[in-house]
C-alpha cells in the first residue's frame, strides 16, 4: 500500500459505551478496537524511517514495528513487541496521554489526525490477554543480586519487570493490600478495569517477581535495613500520596473527602458493591469536585456513578485544565457540569457538622505565573453559594514523607520530593534509586513508567559494575 492510500484512511474511532448508560455503571467506557478496526487503523501508519512518534514515548516503544505486526494480523506478536519495552501495555494503552506524547509527534498529525497509537497498543495487549497466549520473555542468568522495590505502582512495577528480565532477584514491597498503586486505588474501574491491573501484576509474578503486600517500608522496615539485610539496591517508587487540601474554612466538615479517599473507597475498597463489600460508599445528592486535573475528572465521574449530581469547580479557564482533553470530554458527555474561573472560599456546614453548601468566588485570568499558565485573580464581590452535600478537593498530592523521614541520609527538595540525578535517578544515598511521583511530584502513569525504565537501567549498571554512568546524550523525555 502506498503512503497516499494510507493517508486517505480516516482515523478509526473506538466504539464506546453510550454516555447515558455508562454514567450509571462502573464498566469500562471504550470497548476497544475490533480486529477490523485495528487492521484498518494500522494501515494508516506510514512506518516512517525516522519515527518521530518514538521520540514522544517515555518508554521508547518501537511504535512502527508493533503497528506493522498488527497490520500483518500478527496481533500477539505485536503485544510481545510492546512488552519488550513496556511491561504494562494494556494499562498504558488506556491511561497514557498519547495526544501530548507519541501521537503529538506523528507526522500524520501535521495535516490531519495522527495514528491512534494508544488504541492500537491497547488492542494488541487486550488481544494477547484474551487469547491467553502470554509469552514469558527470556530471562538472563541469575546474577545473584537482590533488589528491593518500594511501592507497587507504575514506576515500581516497571522497574521490577525490567530488572527481573536482567536476571536480578526482585522483591516489591507494597503498603496496601493490593499491588498496583494509583492503578488500583486511584484510577476508576470505568477507565482501567482492575482485572487488567491484576493480570499485568500476575505476569510479573510469573516472571519471578516477589510481591509483599501489606508491607509499609519506613514502618515495618527501613531502607537502611533493607540494604543491611541482603538487598543490593533499593528503588523508591512510593508516589505522591499525601492529599492537598485548600486550607479554607469548613474543610473538616462531614462530607468533605479528599479525592484519594473518594476514589479509594470506590476503586480499591469496592464500596460501590456495598453491602457485599464492607466499606461504605459516599452517597450524595450533589457533589462539588474542586480541581481541573485527571483526578478531578475521575472523582466527578465517579460521583455520577454513585448517583449524584456532579459539578467541577476550577479556578482557571478551560484552556488551563491539566486533565486530558478526552477525560474532560467524557466527563461532560456523561453529564458532569464544569464551572470554570470559580474558586471555593469556604465550605458551609449545618448544625450536625455536615456540608450543606460551598461559597465560591468568580475569578479572572491575569499574567502567566511560574507554571506558565495565566494566574487566576479573584473578582471582588462576586461570591456566590452552591448548595451541595459533598465536596471533593482534587488538588493534587504531595509525596509521601514516610521514606525520607526514616532514611536520614536521603536528600529531599523543599517540595518533599527526593533529590535525584535527573539522568540516572540515583538518589543521594548509595545504591538507592527513585522514580515516579516521589521524584517529580504528582504526574502521570507513563512518566512514572518512563522513570522506572531509566532507574532499572541505572540499577542494572550499578549491580553489575558497582557504579552508574551518566548517559552521553539526554534520553528523550517526550515533552520539550
Amino acid at each position: 500500500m502506498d503512503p497516499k492510500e494510507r493517508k486517505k484512511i480516516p482515523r478509526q474511532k473506538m466504539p464506546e459505551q453510550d454516555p447515558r448508560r455508562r454514567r450509571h455503571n462502573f464498566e469500562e467506557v471504550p470497548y476497544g478496537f475490533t480486529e477490523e478496526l485495528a487492521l484498518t487503523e494500522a494501515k494508516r501508519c506510514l512506518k516512517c524511517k525516522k519515527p518521530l512518534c518514538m521520540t514522544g514515548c517515555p518508554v521508547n516503544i518501537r511504535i512502527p514495528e508493533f503497528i506493522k505486526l498488527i497490520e500483518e494480523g500478527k496481533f500477539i506478536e505485536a503485544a510481545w513487541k510492546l512488552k519488550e519495552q513496556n511491561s504494562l501495555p494494556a494499562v498504558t494503552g488506556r491511561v497514557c496521554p498519547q495526544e501530548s506524547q507519541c501521537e503529538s509527534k506523528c507526522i500524520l498529525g501535521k495535516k490531519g489526525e495522527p495514528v491512534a497509537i494508544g488504541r492500537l497498543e491497547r488492542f494488541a495487549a487486550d488481544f494477547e490477554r484474551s487469547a491467553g497466549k502470554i509469552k514469558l520473555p527470556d530471562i538472563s542468568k541469575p546474577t545473584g543480586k537482590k533488589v528491593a522495590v518500594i511501592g507497587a505502582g507504575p514506576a515500581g512495577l516497571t522497574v521490577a519487570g525490567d530488572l527481573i528480565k536482567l536476571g536480578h532477584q526482585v522483591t516489591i514491597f507494597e503498603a496496601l493490600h493490593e499491588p498496583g498503586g494509583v492503578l488500583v486505588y486511584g484510577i476508576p474501574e470505568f477507565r482501567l478495569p482492575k482485572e487488567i491491573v491484576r493480570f499485568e501484576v500476575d505476569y510479573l509474578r510469573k516472571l519471578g517477581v516477589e510481591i509483599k503486600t501489606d508491607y509499609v517500608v519506613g514502618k515495618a522496615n527501613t531502607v537502611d535495613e533493607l540494604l543491611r539485610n541482603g538487598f543490593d539496591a533499593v528503588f523508591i517508587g512510593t508516589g505522591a500520596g499525601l492529599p492537598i487540601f485548600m486550607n479554607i474554612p469548613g474543610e473538616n466538615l462531614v462530607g468533605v473527602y479528599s479525592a484519594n479517599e473518594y476514589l479509594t473507597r470506590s476503586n480499591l475498597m469496592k464500596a460501590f458493591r456495598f453491602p457485599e463489600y464492607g466499606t461504605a460508599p459516599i452517597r450524595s445528592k450533589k457533589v462539588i469536585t474542586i480541581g481541573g486535573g485527571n483526578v478531578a475528572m475521575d472523582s466527578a465521574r465517579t460521583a455520577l456513578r454513585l448517583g449524584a449530581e456532579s459539578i467541577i469547580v476550577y479556578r482557571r479557564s478551560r484552556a488551563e485544565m491539566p486533565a486530558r482533553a478526552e477525560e474532560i470530554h467524557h466527563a461532560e458527555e456523561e453529564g458532569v457540569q464544569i464551572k470554570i474561573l470559580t474558586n471555593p472560599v469556604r465550605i458551609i456546614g449545618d448544625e450536625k457538622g455536615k456540608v450543606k453548601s460551598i461559597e465560591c468566588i468568580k475569578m479572572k485570568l491575569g499574567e502567566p505565573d511560574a507554571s506558565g499558565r495565566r494566574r487566576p485573580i479573584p473578582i471582588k464581590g462576586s461570591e456566590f453559594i452552591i448548595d451541595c452535600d459533598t465536596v471533593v478537593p482534587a488538588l493534587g498530592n504531595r509525596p509521601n514523607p514516610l521514606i525520607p523521614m526514616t532514611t536520614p541520609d536521603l536528600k529531599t527538595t523543599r517540595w518533599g520530593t527526593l533529590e535525584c540525578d535527573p539522568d540516572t535517578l540515583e538518589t543521594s544515598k548509595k545504591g538507592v534509586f527513585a522514580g515516579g511521583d516521589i521524584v517529580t511530584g504528582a504526574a502521570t502513569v507513563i512518566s512514572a513508567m518512563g522513570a522506572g525504565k531509566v532507574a532499572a537501567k541505572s540499577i542494572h549498571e550499578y549491580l553489575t559494575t558497582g557504579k552508574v554512568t551518566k548517559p552521553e546524550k539526554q534520553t528523550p523525555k517526550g515533552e520539550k
Partner: protein
Amino acid sequence: MTEIQLTIEGRKVKAKEGDTVLEAAQKAGIKIPTLCAHPALEPYGACRLCIVEIEGMRGYPTSCTTPAAEGMVVKTVSPEIIELRKNVIKLMLSGHTSPCFVCLHRESCEKYRPRSFKAGKVTRCVFCSNRDTCELRMLADEYEINDLEVPIIYKNLEVEQIDPFMDRDYNLCILCGRCARICEKIHEKGTIDFINRGKDARIGTAFNRPHTDTDCRFCGACVDICPTGAMSDRFAKWYGAPDWVQESTCVVCPLGCSLNFKIKDGKAIGASMSAFSREARICAIGRFVLPQLLNNPARRLSHQVRIEDGLIEASYKEAVERAAGILEAYRGDQFALIAHSGATREEIYILKKFTKEVMKSDNFALATANGDKLLIQPASVLDAINRGKIKALYSLGDFIDPISIEKLEAIIVADLFPSRLEKTADVFLAAAALAETDGTFLNSQGKVKTLKAAATPPENLFPDWKIVCDIAKKMGVSGFGFRTTGGILKEMKKRKAIDQEPPLSPEPSPLEHVDSLPQFYRGHRLSDLVCALEAFMPPEEIEKKKEREEAEETPFRIIEKIEIVPNTHMVTIQAPVIAQKCQPGQFVIAMVGRTSERIPYTISDFDRKSGTITLVTLELGRSSRELANTRAGEYLAHLTGPLGKPVDVKKYGTVVCAGGCYGVGAMLPIARAMKQAGNRVICIEEAASHYLLHWKDRLSANCDELVIVTKDGSEGLKGGVQEAIEMLIQRGEKIDQAYVIGCTFMMMLVSELAKKHGIPTQTAMNPLMLDGTGMCGACRVSVGEATKFACVDGPFLDGLKINWIELMQRQAAFKTEEIEAMPQEPVPMHEPGHACLTAKG
C-alpha cells in the same frame, strides 16, 4: 355483667365484675406501674411492681392478680409502696447489666451519644438496641433510681444469634415471662418457656434447641412483647425506636394478614402483628421479610429504558413515554399483561382495564405462587407467548423463563428487583409496593383488607396502578385520570366490577409451620433476596454461600482468640514483621476477609520472640464483629503495620496511663515502656462495671499503682477516669504526663479535666481510616488551628487542643451505612473453649 364500684386513690371508680384492681385503675386513668402485666396477657403476678394497699387486706397485694370488689378501698401510692417498688426495680436492674443507671456521666453520655452502639453483647444501656423503648429503663427513671445497693450481676449467658431474624440475649431478661405467655397464647403450644430453676431460671426452648429445630413459626410476638432488649429483631434493631406505626395488610400470600408497619425516617424497618392474639397471627414473611424486601440492597431504585447498548437510567416521565410509545404498536391480542396475586383490587382492576380498553386484548393473566411453583392463569396466555402469538408483554414480576422471553418482541417490566426479563426488556419501571402503597385486598377468607401507604417510596417511584394510568394517559386513552385508589374503587363500584372470587387459602397455612411460608413475591424467590430465609428454603444461588465460607490461607494466622470479658475480644495473630518493629502506641490495619473494610486496631501487646501481636477489640458493628467471630487457626486476609507514631517514651516523672474498653489493652505497652523508662506509672482502668474489668494483673505488673474505677462503683472508685484523676490530684499527686485511650466520649471528658489542671495529655484517636499511611485523609482531626492526620501524626494527639465535637461528628459520618451493613445471617454458637471467659483479676 354487674357493675361494681370501688375507691382508688380516693376516687370512686366503676368496674366490671371480674376486672382486676389493675384493670379498674387503668380504666379510671389511674396509673399503676407494671412490667409482667400486658393487656394481651392473663394476670401473672411475677414482677410485683403493681403492688397496692387495700383496706382490710394484709400486706401489699399485686393489683394485676387481685379481683376488684364492691366497696374496695385501694391506695396505689404511699411512701411504703414507692419504697417497695423501688426495691423491686433495683433487684431487676441488678440482674440486667444496668451500670448506666447509676453512672455519674449518664446525662452527657446520652447527649453526645444519642444512638446506642451496635454491640454484639449488651453490657450496659448505651450498647442496647432497645435503649429508647426499654420499659424497665422508663420505670427506673420514673422512680428516679440513680443508686443501687445491690450488686449488678452479668449472667454471662451466650447470646443466641443462631436463628433467622432474631437475636436473643437472656442476660437482659428480667423473667417477666411475657414472651413465653404470648407464645402459648398465640400458638396454643408455646415454643419457649421457663427452663432451669432458682438463679439459673431463664427462658428457652425445650432442651435449649435452636428455634429452627422447634415448631417456632417466627411470628416475632416474643420480640415485640419483650419489655427489655433481651429479644430483638436483627434487621430493625439498630435503627432505633420507630417514629410511628401504621396498620396495613400483607399481600405476599392470599391470607392477606393484617400487620403493623413500623416506620422510621419514612422507611418501613419492621412489622408486627396488629394485635397480640391468635386471630392476628402473622408468619415470618410478614413479620420479618417485608421490611427486608423494601430496603433490599438489590432493589431497583431507578427506571430504565433500552438504548442500543442496553438499559439506561431514565426519568419516570421518559420511561412512561417510552412504554407508551412501544405499546402503541402492539394493540390487540398480540399483547399480554401478567399481574401478580399480591396486587391490590384496585391495581388488578386498572391492569385489566388497561389490557382490555387500552390494549384491546383479552390476554390478562395472574401469576400466583403455589409452594415452590409459579402458576400463570389462564394458562392460555403463557401458551400464546410460547407459540409466538403474543409479541408484547407487560409484566409485573419475574414470571416467565428465558425460552418464553425469547419469543417476545417488546417487554415492559414493572418490578422491584432485578429480573430475567431485564436482558431484553425495553422499559423497566421501578415500582413502589407493599408498605408504600394503599388500596384494598380481597383475602382468601373473602374479607376486604385495607393497605395503607406508610413508608415513603424511594424518590420518583410509584405504585403499579399509577404507572399504568400514566402510560394509558400518554397513549391518549381517557378513563385513567385517577389520582387516588379511592377514585378507582369508586369506579369499580359504579361499574359493579368488584364481585371477585376470593383466592384459595394456601394449604398448609404458613401460620402453622415455617415449611409452608410463601416462597415468592412477584416471581422472585424470597430466599434469594433475604439471606436468613435460607434456614427454611434453599436459595437459588448456592455458590455465593460457598464463597463466604472458604477463608484463604495468609501469613496472618490467628494463634489465640478469647472473649476476655463480655463483648471484649482479644486476638493474637502471627505477624513477625510487625511484632519485631512495633512500639507502644502504634496500630495496625486489619481486613478480616477479602471484602472487609480496612479497620485500625491499636496494638495491645506484642511478643518479638514468638512474632505475634495482640489486638483487643469491642464488638460494635460489622467489621469488629468479623474480628470477634474469628477462631484460633483461621487467618486474617490482610494485616498492615506497625502504623502511626509511637508514643514518646522518656522520663517525665509521674505518668498516668488511663484506659477504658479496648483501651485497657492498648495502654499496657505504653505503661510498660514508661515504667522501663524510669517513670512512676499510675494506671487507671475504667469499666462500666466489675464484670468488664480485665487485664488487672497485666497492668499491675507494669505500673506502680493501678486505680480501678467503675461507673457503678461496683469495684474501686465510682465514676470514670476523670474521677480517678481528680482523686490523684486531691491526694497531692503531680501528674507530668497522661496517656488516655478509650472511647472518644471518655477521652473528651478526661481532656476537659486535664485542661483545667494543665496536665499534658495525649489521647489516642480512633477515627475512620482507609490506608493508614496518610493517603486518604479520612482521619483528619482538628488540633488547635492545625489539621492532623491521625494515621501519620497520631494516633496520639494533644487532647487539650482537639476539637472533640467535630471528631465525634466525623466518626458518625457513615452511621446509616453502618447499620445497613450489619449482617443478617444467623451466627453459629461459639464452640466450647471459645465461650466467654470472664477473667476476674
